[in-house]
């Protein structure tokens, strides 16, 4: 298992490098070039040339990339053009908000999704199953930010159980922190749960119909043992895939949810960077997403290995 884990870890290095190339290229393929974007369309050609020389834009691309990567590895992604401060600092300050949402939302989604999926999959066609399936279908179609608004209207504006907007850091006041992220996490978690329910249910049904479950029943071991030990583990494999996809998406889904609750996370700076073509800031946020995705993929790969001996021992 350790060997398997290390190989997976090593495999992420080229992936990260490729991502960094992509992120770097975003800046270089801007129409007109960076200098024009920085100076505006009305800048005289002389000033553009001067700025390009200053920024080292006349060097060959690999040189520029090496310089950029070298800086990035030292934690320097440059200064944001619009915020006029280091990108890394901005991201580090805002990261905890987005991470709280992503982790909380996934936890709610996974726990709820697995539970309901198993209940539905155990008795396919029953009333409970049909109810769960119906709710899950609606949940999958529900835009997370709409759900966030509905939750905010009801629980924050009308019932006043939770704050409608704003964020309290964990270090400042844990209870307030929890209250400030509860609704956003639910808004992210419910659609995620719906997705997991659907996959869990269908793969559980498939596994329960398999030959080895029939054979396990034939050995006469108790029903709960057949379900928990013989069926569950195999049924989880495709579910883990779905969770992996969702982990990558939940990070970007939280963009819209953050906007609804006016949380000071990554969302606002991402949108700002896109709208105002703030390239260093965009590179920072995309790189951050990529890093997050790579790390989650690694976790997913490790859980495959844990679930499936064929993967681990290959």
């Amino acid at each position, binding site marked *: 298992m350790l060997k398997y884990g290390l190989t997976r870890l090593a495999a992420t290095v080229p*992936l990260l490098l*490729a*991502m960094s190339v*992509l992120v770097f290229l*975003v800046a270089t*393929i801007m129409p007109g070039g960076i200098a024009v974007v920085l100076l505006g369309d009305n800048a005289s050609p002389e000033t553009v040339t001067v700025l390009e020389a200053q920024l080292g834009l006349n060097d060959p691309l690999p040189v520029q990339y090496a310089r950029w990567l070298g800086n990035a590895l030292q934690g320097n992604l440059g200064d944001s053009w619009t915020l006029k401060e280091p990108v890394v600092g901005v991201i580090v300050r805002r990261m905890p908000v987005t991470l709280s949402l992503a982790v909380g939302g996934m936890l709610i989604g996974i726990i709820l999704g697995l539970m309901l999926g198993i209940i539905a999959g155990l008795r396919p*066609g029953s009333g409970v199953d049909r109810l769960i399936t119906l709710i899950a*279908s*609606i949940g*999958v*179609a*529900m*835009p997370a*930010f*709409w759900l966030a*608004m509905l939750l905010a*209207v009801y629980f924050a*504006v*009308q019932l006043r159980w939770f704050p*409608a907007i704003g964020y309290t850091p964990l270090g400042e006041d844990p209870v307030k922190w929890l209250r400030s992220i509860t609704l956003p996490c639910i808004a992210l978690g419910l659609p995620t749960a719906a997705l997991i329910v659907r996959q869990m249910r269908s793969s559980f049904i498939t596994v329960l*119909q398999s*030959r*080895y479950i*029939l*054979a396990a*029943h*034939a*050995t*006469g*071991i*108790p*029903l709960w*043992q057949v379900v928990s*030990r*013989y069926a569950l583990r195999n049924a989880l494999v495709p579910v883990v895939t779905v969770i992996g996809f969702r982990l*990558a*998406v939940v*990070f*970007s*889904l939280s*963009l*819209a949810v953050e906007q609804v609750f006016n949380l000071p996370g990554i*969302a606002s700076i*991402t*949108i700002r*960077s*896109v*709208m105002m*073509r703030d390239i260093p800031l*965009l590179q920072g946020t*995309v790189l951050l*997403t990529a890093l997050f*995705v*790579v790390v989650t*993929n690694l976790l997913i790969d490790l859980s495959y290995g844990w*679930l*499936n*001996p*064929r993967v681990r*021992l290959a």
Partner: protein
Amino acid sequence: MTDAAKPRGVSGQARVWWRLRQQRLALIAAGYILLLYVVAIIGPWIAPYGPMTGDLRSTLQGPSIAHWLGTDHLGRDILSQIIYGTRLSMWAALEAVLIAIILGVPIGLLAGYVGGKLDRAVMWAVDLIFALPPIMVALGIIAVLGTTLDTVMAAVGFAFSTRFVRLTRGMTLTEREELYVDGARVGGLDVWTIVSHHILPNIAPALIAQAALQFGGVLLIEATLSFLGIGASLEQPSWGRLLSQSRDYMDAYPFLAIPSGAAIMLAVLAFNLLGDGLHTALGRDTIVAKRKTKRRKGDTETQRHGDGSNARSLIKTNMTALAIQGLQVRFPGAQNREIEIVCDVSLDLKSGETLGLVGESGSGKSMTALATLGLVPAPGWISNGSVQLGGRELTTLPDSELRRLRGKEMSIVFQDSFTSLNPSLTIETQLTDPLRAHLGLNSRQARERALELLALVQLPDPQRRLNEYPHQLSGGMAQRVGLARALACQPSVLIADEPTSALDVTVQGQILDLLKDAQRKFGMAILFITHDWGIVAELCDRVAVMYAGEIVETGKVDGVFAHPRHPYTRALLATLPGLDRTGTRSVPVIPGVVPPPQDWHKGCHFYPRCALAIPACNRNPVPLTSVGDDRQTRCVRAGEEGLW
């Protein structure tokens, strides 16, 4: 024209339509999507107001006759904005999905079919993009190219194309392994023809279902981007934009968030339901049958095949280990009909003897075995008959008590040893679980016993094998493990369901020898299910021949081989090419095929293929009758002298 039997069932297209019509939710969803596109086309003519026509005297109003869905903060009609938003969202989604398909499918087909370096290069790049959330890919492209709606949807289409590449490639890889592709290559067809004419039609249904699902995803992303203010510009009414505006009035007028949000959700839901429905309807191995909770119908139903009482009385000693009487298994069929796939099976198995149950595929022999163990897979059920193990009736036992007997008093070895072992559990777990459940052993005792069992089935290096997983074993070894598991608690009855059919003949010989040894040691009775008459000849004391759900003949092995008393047995034995038969280049044949259960005749099931058939055969169900020493046959003409 020996095999030119009637074609079965309806034509393929009719069946697809029938399956589609079964998916009622999907049909409703399709209707709704159609409506959305109609609205998208004729929107400007049916919308009561212009999308931007505001009336500042009536802002933030609730639903009224003038404004069915109320007005927004600028007094604009919500319904009209939703209608114009439909136009925008539906075209945008169509644009993105079309771009995704046009980009993704050809690349996937090519990478999947050609394989090798091209495939690896393409998939590496695709995986790279796929790993990123589509919305981030879109954001990156938008940042570079600008934020017009067309750019945005092209970016989303590009991001989604990776999904089509992956899906298409995966299915192409699977299809490429199908023999018909080899056949097309041997037929001298070129790559283009094979890909477009042979592979694409087979993966198209799944692609269409996937496209419907991706529509939902694209709609959601479009709405999210518009909500964030990136997609549609301020002048363009879109669902996401409407929703984002309502955010400022959450306090004052929460209803504003309902219509646009519901519009998004319903559209996405419709595409998802359509995709699910298409997936079910177009899938190659669709199981349409619904689960029925019906259990034994019991005695209210009149038995079709007589009561089989004459069969019962013949060999009933207190030595009987397993007695099956008039067993019937039914499955729900089309149009609420019930299909009987095992009809009136009666068997007696004495302690220590081996009974062969022979028949072709579809004759119901495996289902008989599963029914004996109380393991008829849903939606089927035992509709009649009794199964007695050591004098104890099993069909009325609750599941929990049946479990205490299964694996302990009565166990089974399956044909395919690999699929009957759990791929993610070690051999040790799978061997010791039943030992611990039935014999109450602790884990150390169970492990020791498991080692003994593996030694018994002559698995080399049992210590190491215990810690291994099924995929690390060869077919012969896996079957030895299956046998060890079945023998674990020294059952009095072992059911062997074609345990050697998937193995090589030399390994088959070793497994048969093992079975004989174990029987000598434990004295259990074996019900050996097979289609191989050679194995029956070697292993069995008595044999029961099954055809189309019925036992047609039973008797002692030597007698049945020497003088078969049923036309099917006789014809089948005659068709077998023997190792020592020489010369003749033409084998006698039985015309026709085993019919599927819904086509079984009311009278003798073998009637349509029988060389001795007379009109009387097709009138009534034929009972199993005794013809001499321990021999029964199900034939109208069984008593005719000179015929046998």
